[in-house]
């Protein structure tokens, strides 16, 4: 059974059709690239899956359940986590606290216990600290644990976002341009990281990315959309050699060069 399935999904903003009749499905354990030119509607697809926007038409199934009507919070709790194109960390909290925050459901103390600061609270907080450290180690941020999130350089902020998403214990992880602003070595390290977390946490991943080397390295399957519509959905070899993709994505001129 497929983990995620979009059936004829359409999203309109006023008169503008951002996503049009889009269908694709994703099996458990798959990693797929979602690519397309700027403004193709990639992030909108993420926003629809995570419930930030409601679909205008069509349905989205996650583990066979219709999640159209769910609010974002229950969708996250159901097992879909994401990162953001324009990094959205809790800036004034420390790196560690960013992770601790999203682990809040592991802390089974109540409000009265908090006010009295019972030993249970102290113990749970210590537990949360250890748990967050695990996630920070995965992305290699443990030495920055006490830095304020907004004091980190750009690349590390992206890693922290990935760690924060991991801490939500998702089954499906949506990565929105994780390599943006990274240099080639950093992107390479990111590829290794994504591969590692996918294996380690049994994740299914959709990756939006403009760095083609990252996409080609990671994703055996690529979904291309253009103007909100599905252009092609297939293996990376198929997509690489498809002329329409080259035209849409790289422009007419480059397509000719590449075609030769």
């Amino acid at each position, binding site marked *: 059974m497929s983990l995620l399935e979009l059936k004829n999904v359409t999203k309109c*903003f006023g008169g503008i059709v951002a996503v049009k009749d889009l269908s694709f499905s994703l099996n458990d354990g798959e990693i797929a690239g979602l690519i397309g030119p700027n403004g193709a509607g990639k*992030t909108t697809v993420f*926003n629809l899956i995570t419930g*930030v*926007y409601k679909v205008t038409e069509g349905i989205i199934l996650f583990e066979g359940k219709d999640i159209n009507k769910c609010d974002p919070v229950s969708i996250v709790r159901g097992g879909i986590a994401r990162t*953001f194109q324009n990094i959205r960390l809790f800036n004034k909290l420390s790196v560690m606290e960013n992770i601790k925050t999203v682990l809040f459901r592991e802390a089974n103390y109540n409000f009265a216990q908090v006010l009295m600061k019972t030993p249970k609270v102290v113990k749970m907080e210590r537990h949360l600290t250890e748990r967050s450290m695990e996630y920070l180690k995965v992305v290699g941020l443990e030495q920055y644990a006490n830095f304020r999130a907004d004091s980190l350089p750009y690349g590390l902020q992206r890693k922290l976002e990935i760690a924060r998403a991991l801490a939500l214990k998702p089954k499906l992880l949506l990565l929105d341009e994780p390599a943006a602003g990274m240099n080639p070595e950093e992107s390479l390290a990111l590829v290794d990281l994504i591969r590692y977390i996918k294996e380690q946490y049994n994740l299914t991943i959709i990756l939006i990315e403009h760095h083609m080397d990252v996409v080609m390295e990671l994703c055996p399957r690529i979904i291309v959309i253009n103007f909100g519509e599905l252009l092609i959905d297939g293996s990376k070899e198929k997509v690489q050699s498809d002329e329409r993709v080259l035209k849409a994505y790289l422009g007419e001129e480059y397509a000719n060069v590449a075609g030769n």
Partner: protein
Amino acid sequence: MFLQTLITGLSIGGIYALMAVGYSLVFSILNFSNFAHGTIIMLGAYIGYFLISSFKLGFPFSFIGAIVGAALLALINVRLAYSPLINRKAPPLYLMITAMGVSIFLENMVYVTVGSHFYSFPEIFKQSTIKFFGSDISPLDLFALIFSFIAIFALHLFLTRTKMGTAIRAASYDMTVASLNGVNMNKLIGIVFILAGAFGGLAGVFLGVKYMVYPTMGWITNKAYIAAVIGGLGSLPGAVIGGVILGVLETFVSVYVSSVIRDVFSFSLVILFLVILPAGLLGKYLEEKV
């Protein structure tokens, strides 16, 4: 009785609309609630009052003086207090707090300098009333109502028919894009505040003539803000409709129910509106960009 109430309500609604326009103009481009607008209105009323009673300028010139004065104050307000925040792209909450600060500062400056006296405008219109289908209408109410709508219509023409107006409307959709297209944002923001201030001065004089001039008269402007919210913050027609609706409903409540609960009614109304229609009647409901 009914007709009388309706007409009183309409004339109050007209003044609300006039004030609400100022909130909406600023909100449409800067996306924050300018709580200092009420104070500008109050200062406009003071300027009008002193021009007419101390400087004996006569009504038309005092009227114009109040409008110009309030517009200038609004411009000074934005340049001194808001521009530093706008330039560093501070969040709207910070701008709102600043606006609160400006409002508290100016209102109490009036208290400590001018004092807490109530001033009333010299009689401009004869106290006589016009008979209209058996109801009494004061010429002042009629004048205020008509003048308010003329002014708002003129603003509408300015926004739709002139180059600057188009630029303002463009900026209200997307400030970044507008500035990329060569719109001088600083100048544009200045013009928006001058317009808002001018409307504030106008409303201030009407308020002062109708009621009195005193430091906390800005409290009434909170209801103009409510009117703007009901109509949909950032929408000009919304401000007008919201103002009229609030003015009429409120007058009916105070006549037929109790004048004590009039203000409480207005605030409950806005809460009800926000729950049912978060964007107001005509507001653009912005789904936050993620």
